[in-house]
């Protein structure tokens, strides 16, 4: 078994305009059925713009949201979200907003003790010892334990969030924009900490972010999400340098870069489609310079191109001529 996470046909739709009885007025497809695997010990990055379904996907993986269809396997076993105490030991989650993920009325020690007590049934002395170990691993001082969350800066709070996730002793961590609320100088500290922890404990990461450069810096492989569907998956080292899907290319060209002159990479002044009335065919067709008639009728499926890259596009960009 080399797969830490295996998703098959996983999707999520939200009802809108709920009624007291009877079916809702419409459904919004936040995540279209998707297949994805994360290998043990790997960091898989997921990039996409706001509203593309990143957090919905992440929450399904940890059982906080029930999927509409499909199946989630964690380390070979199907995820059963009936008992939080079981999956909590297998997969954990680090939240985007470090401060609001800590209960303002509990001390850090009380927060840290919950997973140890609930998931591992440790007694008081064992818990104290374990907390000391974990705090050492994330470079936090023990004197922080008796303080309240509002006394910490974003970076410190995020370390506490990571410490709590480690306390569950899960081998898989879902990191949902873990550094986007942090300042750049602190962001680098947390990213480096995550890299060290991964090495030390042999963890597997699913790293979600909207920042291409950050994702590229931490990931082995990257999946690009657009409008609830994966449009391209490939090795981090070349997916942005040699994108095959037009959307990946657009993302890569949009990231502001010193020295590149400003020019809008798209001519159409359009943005994400309306989720209430999704376009027919490829969801990207209104913004795509390569759109053909077929794109407006059919939905392209994610398919491998043989070189380890998967993409969903009828008129992909040319594969690179392997520029060295």
């Amino acid at each position, binding site marked *: 078994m080399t797969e830490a996470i295996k998703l098959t046909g996983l999707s999520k739709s939200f009802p809108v305009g709920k009624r007291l009885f009877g079916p809702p007025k419409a459904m919004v497809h936040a995540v279209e059925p998707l297949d994805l695997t994360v290998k043990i010990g790997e960091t898989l990055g997921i990039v996409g713009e706001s509203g593309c379904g990143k957090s919905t996907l992440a929450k399904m993986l940890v059982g906080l949201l029930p999927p509409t269809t499909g199946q989630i396997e964690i380390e070979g076993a199907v995820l059963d979200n009936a008992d*939080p105490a079981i999956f909590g030991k297998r997969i954990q*989650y680090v939240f985007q907003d470090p401060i609001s993920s800590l209960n303002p009325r509990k001390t850090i020690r009380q927060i840290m003790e919950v997973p140890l007590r609930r998931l591992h049934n440790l007694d008081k002395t064992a818990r104290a010892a374990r907390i000391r170990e974990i705090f050492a691993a994330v470079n936090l001082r023990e004197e922080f334990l008796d303080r309240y969350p509002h006394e910490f800066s974003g970076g410190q709070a995020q370390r506490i969030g990571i410490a709590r996730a480690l306390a569950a002793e899960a081998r898989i961590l879902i990191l949902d924009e873990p550094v986007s609320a942090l300042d750049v100088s*602190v962001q680098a500290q947390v990213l480096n900490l995550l890299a060290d922890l991964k090495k030390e404990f042999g963890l597997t990461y699913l790293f979600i972010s909207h920042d291409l450069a950050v994702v590229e*810096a931490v990931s082995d492989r990257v999946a690009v999400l657009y409008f609830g569907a994966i449009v391209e998956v490939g090795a981090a080292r070349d997916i942005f340098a040699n994108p095959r899907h037009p959307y990946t290319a657009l993302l890569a060209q949009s990231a502001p870069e010193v020295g590149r002159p400003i020019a809008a990479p798209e001519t159409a002044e359009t943005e994400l489609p309306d989720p209430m009335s999704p376009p027919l065919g490829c969801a990207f067709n209104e913004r795509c310079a390569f759109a053909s008639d077929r794109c407006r009728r059919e939905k392209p499926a994610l398919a491998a191109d043989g070189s380890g890259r998967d993409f969903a596009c009828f008129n992909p960009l040319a594969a690179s001529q392997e520029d060295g």
Partner: protein
Amino acid sequence: MMAFLKLLARNRLALAGLIVIGMVVVLALITPLLPLADPDVTDTPNRFKPPFSEGAILGTDHLGRDLLSRLMWGTRLSLAMGLAAAIIAATIGSAIGIIAGYYGGRTDNIIMRGVDMLMAFPYILLALAIVAALGPGLMNALIAVAAVNVPFFARNIRGITVGIAHKEFVDAARLAGMRDREIIVAEVLPNVLPVIVIAMSTTVGWMILETAGLSFLGLGSQPPQADLGSMLGEARSALITNPHTSIVPGAMILIIVMAINLLGDGVRDALDPRLKSGALSRPMPATTVDRQGAVPAAKTESLLDIAGLRTEFRVRDRLYKAVSGVDLHVEKGECLGIIGESGSGKSVTALSVMGLVASPPGVITGGAVHFDGKEIIGAPYEVLRSLRGRRVAYIFQDPLATLHPLYKVGDQLIEAIQSHDSVSSADARSRAIGLLKSVRIPNAESRIESYPYEMSGGMRQRVGIAMALANNPDVIIADEPTTALDVTVQAQILSVLSDLRRERGLAIIFITHDFGVVGQLCDRVAVMYAGQIVEEGPTAAVLRNPQHPYTSRLIDCVPTLGGGQRKLSAIPGLPPVVDNLPVGCAFAERCDKAHADCRAGPVELVKTEEARKTRCLFPEVVSERSA
């Protein structure tokens, strides 16, 4: 708890309320022990004795009963009734509210429909119906008042619970293995409790009024038993002939309820964290100016020249020096970037220019801003107002929050035009359409009728830009206009801005924390740290050869695309908090070149090269990086 009591004591009115209600409660508690006449013994010959008569300090009522004694016993009963009703209503209502709010979905829907039905009655009708069914009487009145107030609590607490149940720490608790019931008790309840206490403290007074009211109508306490309401009710027929029998119980109700309300407000203020920081105060039309020392002269002949600007926030006993001595200038048609981490004072610098820093708590305490040669800090409001939007315009970060949600974007544009230019509405409208076109909004003619909520983030920010352009300003100050947007949309907006700037010869001050954006857009850049400029110079030169250690290390922190998987270099530690700045270099704590001299005293911003300035005693050597 201590902090709470201290906060409460700080509020003098609340303290007065506490003392008064405390005295009333003590008196009510010891009433049975006091040497009072029997409140229920009638003595008709001695009826309607005036106050201060012998043997009856407050006089007697229509049956000759001692008013003082009845007042004391009545107060005791009224207080007990009000408090009991409040506790019953709060307990049941909060339980319903928490369950509905936490579980949500159908449970919530069904419960809240029921609550809505109860709230569809004017409250007294329900109380009257209950009393009508159960019959008049003290207990029944109590039940009626409590029952009527349950829906108020339920709705209030549900709203709060919904907010908390969606907080991330609830999800975190679930992932740590907690079950719903434990989460409600251990995670949700402690956060809801203050709200319950606030709701109770602000409604006890009301409950006392209501129970007194039912008794007043003859539906509550039955004779001969006295509560304050029934005393007033019985005295009503003798109102004109013997007003004292009415005034005594009425004044008592007023005193009790007023004291409770004062106390309740104090409790609310002490428990509501937003009030703690003084955040609920209203920002004035222009920032308060309290300049110490001389007004500095302009350092350059530029269009906009900021010299020695100091802006502070005075919050309670703390002093946050958000901006401490900033010198900046921008020329006609130039784009100046200001870059720095969160809290470094970028926004406060920008807002100070036109007196838009929220005040209280913000105060400009020093420096000068010369626009077109004239000093405008501390200028009269009307002068500032006529410059705002006409010569110096702003674009803000979050376009949803910065546009008025209830007006059409067209009307907001037209207002911007008409604020400075008395043109007819038709003209203003066609100008507005032109503005929307100039920021490349498709279908401008129909988009002008849209409300902000109907637009996407990028379109809203285009409206924000159009609004800034409305009066052809000389300078646009853009405070992180693209930070809230996705990269692809950011690229569109930046290209719009850059084209407009070239077409119109605008000067732009562009605030950001993204080196990439600065590098693409700005001619010059100023780097801010802890409220000061630490480095300034032409963008290309600064980015290629940063001289201040902070700039250089910050650039290294930021991953750039194309670098591959790697370890990033990080700056250890945190930026200093601006209410406790060191005397020396603010970066010394994190700087690996720090020397004793760096901490000894303020470091000046000095010219290092043509057009470059750095605030560092040991600037980076140029050749280090250019290799």
